[in-house]
C-alpha cells in the first residue's frame, strides 16, 4: 500500500496545483485610465482653401498680371499651384472660391469656411505702392479652431510678384509641415534640342515652378552639369567646344562668364563647396580619373584621390567637412565618403548593383544617388550607407539634385524608346512624383538654394 500512496499523491498533486492556480486572487484595482490608439493616414487630408487675394483699390500695376485685382487672383493661383503640384495638402484654388473683402482678410468668416469643409485658409491682400512696388500680405488661418496660425507681408518689385506668392506658399508649407521653405528658389538645367547625333545642349534657368524660363547659352558649345553658387550670383557648368573641356562660371543676370579651368584632359561634374570658395571636379589622365579641388576664384588644383580607376562626382556635406563621391576601385561603381582633405576614404554603398552620382542633402541627413540594377533608379540613404529607400521606379532616372530644404529631389528621366529626356521631381516619401514642364527636353537639373 505504501507504494501506491505516492502514486495516488502524484495523481492528485497536479489537480490540486490547478485548483490553487484557478483560486489565485484577482489583481487589485484596475487603473481608471482608458487607453486606446488613434491611427491616422499618411495621406494629406488637410483641405486648404486659397481664395483670390483682396485689394484696397483696383489700380493698374507694372506687373505681368495686370491690375491689383487680377494680380490678387494670380497670386492666389501661384500659391495654389505650388501646393497642388507638390502633393501637399488638398488645396482649392481661387477659381472655385468666393473672393473675400479686404476687411475679411484679417477677420475671416470662419462659419462659412467651416460649412465648406475647409480645414485651413490662406488669405491675403495685394496693394500697389506709389513707388510702383507691390505689397503682398499673407495670412494662414486654422478654420476648424477659428485661429490665425501665421502671417507675413512682403514688398517686391513689380517683376518679382511671383516671388511674393512663392514666399506665401513657403510660409504656409513651413508652418504646417515644420520643414524649411523651398518654393522661392530657381532651377538650372540643360535644355536639349535637335537630332540624337547632333544634340544642341543649352544652359537654361527657371523658377521652381517653371516660370520665368531663360536660356543662358546659345548652343554653339555643349553645356553640361550646371550648379548654382550658394549665393545665387553665378552658375558653374562644364562646356565642350570641339572636344575641349572647360569649366565656366556664368552670371545669370548679365550672362557674362569667366573661364575657371581648361585642360586637354576630360573634365567632369564640377561642384561648389557650401561656402562657395572651392570647386570640386574630376579629371581623367592616362586612364585614371581622380577628384581635385580648386579655389573658385582660380588657383592651383589640389588632388584629393589617388586610387587606380575612376573617382568622380564629388559632393560636399552641408558643413563642408566631408565629400561623397563615386569610385569603381572595388570593380564596380560604388559610393564612397572621405574627409574634405581627401583622407579617410571608405565605401558606404553595399546594396548590390552599382551606385552612382551621389549628392549630399543640404540638410545633411540623406545622400541621394542613382542605383543601377538593370534599370536606373533614384534612391536615398543615410550618410552611413543605411536606410536605402527608392524614390522612383522607371527605366532610366539619374542625376538627383536636392531642393533647398532637402525634402524633395529633382532628376532627369530618359524615355526607353525615343531617348527623349525630361525633368522630374519626387519628394522623400516617394509619393508625389511629377514632371516639370520645360519648353524643350531637359536633363542635368540643378536646384539652387532658397533665394536670398
Amino acid at each position, binding site marked *: 500500500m505504501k507504494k501506491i500512496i505516492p502514486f495516488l499523491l502524484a495523481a492528485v498533486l497536479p489537480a490540486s496545483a490547478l485548483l490553487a492556480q*484557478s483560486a489565485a486572487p*484577482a*489583481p*487589485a*484595482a*484596475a487603473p*481608471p*485610465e*482608458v*487607453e*486606446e*490608439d*488613434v*491611427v*491616422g*493616414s*499618411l*495621406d*494629406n*487630408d*488637410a*483641405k486648404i482653401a486659397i481664395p483670390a487675394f483682396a485689394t484696397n483699390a483696383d489700380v493698374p500695376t507694372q506687373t505681368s498680371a495686370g491690375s491689383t485685382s487680377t494680380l490678387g487672383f494670380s497670386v492666389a493661383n501661384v500659391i495654389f499651384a505650388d501646393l497642388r503640384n507638390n502633393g*501637399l*495638402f488638398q488645396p482649392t484654388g481661387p477659381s472655385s472660391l468666393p473672393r473675400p473683402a479686404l476687411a475679411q482678410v484679417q477677420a475671416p468668416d470662419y462659419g462659412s469656411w467651416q460649412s465648406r469643409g475647409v*480645414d*485651413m485658409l490662406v488669405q491675403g491682400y495685394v496693394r500697389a505702392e506709389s513707388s510702383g512696388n507691390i505689397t503682398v500680405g499673407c495670412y494662414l488661418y*486654422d478654420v*476648424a*479652431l477659428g485661429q490665425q496660425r501665421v502671417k507675413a507681408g512682403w514688398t517686391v518689385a513689380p517683376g518679382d510678384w511671383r516671388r511674393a506668392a512663392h514666399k506665401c506658399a513657403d510660409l504656409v508649407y513651413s508652418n*504646417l*509641415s*515644420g*520643414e*524649411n521653405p523651398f518654393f522661392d528658389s530657381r532651377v538650372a538645367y540643360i535644355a536639349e534640342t535637335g537630332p540624337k547625333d547632333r544634340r544642341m545642349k543649352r544652359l537654361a534657368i527657371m523658377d521652381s515652378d517653371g516660370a520665368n524660363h531663360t536660356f543662358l547659352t546659345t548652343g554653339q558649345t555643349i553645356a553640361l552639369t550646371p550648379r548654382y553658387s550658394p549665393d545665387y550670383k553665378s552658375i558653374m557648368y562644364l562646356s565642350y567646344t570641339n572636344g575641349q573641356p572647360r569649366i565656366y562660371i556664368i552670371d545669370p543676370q548679365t550672362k557674362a562668364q569667366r573661364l575657371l579651368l581648361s585642360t586637354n584632359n576630360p573634365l567632369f561634374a564640377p561642384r561648389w563647396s557650401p561656402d562657395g570658395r572651392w570647386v570640386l571636379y574630376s579629371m581623367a589622365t592616362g586612364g585614371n580619373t581622380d577628384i581635385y579641388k580648386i579655389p573658385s576664384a582660380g588657383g592651383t588644383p589640389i588632388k584629393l584621390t589617388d586610387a587606380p580607376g575612376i573617382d568622380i562626382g564629388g559632393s560636399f556635406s552641408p558643413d563642408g567637412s566631408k565629400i561623397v563621391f563615386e569610385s569603381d576601385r572595388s570593380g564596380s561603381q560604388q559610393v564612397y565618403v572621405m574627409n574634405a582633405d581627401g583622407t579617410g576614404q571608405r565605401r558606404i554603398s553595399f546594396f548590390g548593383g552599382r551606385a552612382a552620382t551621389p549628392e549630399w542633402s543640404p540638410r545633411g*541627413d*540623406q545622400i541621394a544617388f542613382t542605383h543601377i540594377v538593370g534599370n536606373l533608379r533614384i534612391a536615398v540613404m*543615410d550618410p552611413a550607407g543605411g536606410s536605402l529607400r527608392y524614390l522612383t521606379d522607371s527605366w532610366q532616372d539619374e542625376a538627383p539634385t536636392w531642393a533647398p530644404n532637402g*525634402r524633395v529631389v529633382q532628376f532627369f528621366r530618359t524615355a526607353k524608346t525615343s531617348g527623349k529626356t525630361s525633368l522630374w521631381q519626387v*519628394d*522623400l*516619401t516617394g509619393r508625389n512624383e511629377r514632371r516639370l514642364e520645360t519648353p524643350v527636353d531637359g536633363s542635368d537639373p540643378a536646384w539652387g538654394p532658397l533665394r536670398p
Partner: protein
Amino acid sequence: MRRALSREEAFGLGLAALGHVALAWVLVMAKPSAPPPPIDRVSVTLSDEMGAVSTSPNPKSDPMADKGPELGEPAPVEEAAPPPQPQAQPQPKPQPAPQPRVAAVPPPKPAPVPAPKTAPAKPQQQTKAAPKAVPATKTPAKAGASSFDQLFAKGIPGGSSKGRDQTSAASQASAQQVASWSSSINSRVRGPWNSCPVNGLDVNKLRASVRFTLDPNGRVQSIEDFDVTGVTEANRAQVKPFKDCAVRAIRLAAPFAGLPPEFHDQWKNRRLNFRKE
C-alpha cells in the same frame, strides 16, 4: 498448546491470506484501467484588464416596471399654479409602499413564496396605489393624452415588478459599454487627426501618447504635457506639428457625447496613442 497458532489465529491468518490473494487477483486481473478521460481543457486568458468591481448585472436589482410614456402637451397654466402642494404630498405617500416590496424581494425567500399568492396581491396593491396617487398629484393628466396611455401610466397591470430602480441593472459599466465609449471618442478624434497635416520621411515612426481628463459633460478638462517619441534625424522637423496636431484633434473632437455621467469615474481619465501609417 504446542501449536504456535490457535485455531482462531490460523483461521484468521488463512482468511487474511485468502483476502490478500483475492485482492491480488482482483488487482492483477482487473482490466488495465482505461486511459484517464482527457481533461476538459478550458482556455484561460490572463488579463490585466480586470475590473476591480463586478460588471455583471446586479441580481438584487429591482427594475422599474415598464411604463407608458406621457403624451401630449404639458398641462395648461391652471394646473401649473398649485404645484407646491402636490409635490409635497406624494413624498410621504411612497413610504408605506416599501413594506410590500420588502416582502416581495425575491432573494430572501425564493422558494417558500407561493406564486399564486403574490400574483393576485400585486394587482390589489397597484389598484389601491393608483387611485390614491392620481387624485393626490392631479398633474399627470396632460392635454391630449390618450386614455390608453393613461391606463399604462403607472405601469403594466400585472407587471411582475414594482421596483423603482431607473438606472441600468449593472452597478458597473460592462466591457461592452466601455468599448462603445472608446469607439465614440476614437471615431471623433480620428477625423481631425487626419485633417491635420503632418507628412514626410519617418513620420510613421512618431508616437504621441496623450493623457487627458474629461468632465462629466464630456468636455476636455486638462491635457497633460507630453513628449513625442520615435524621433529620427529625418522626422525631427515634424515633431512639433505632430504634437500640435494631436492636441488639436482632441480639442476639436470634444465635447464627447454619449458618455453616461453616472460612470464618469470610469471614462474621465483617458490616454490616446496617436500615430500615422
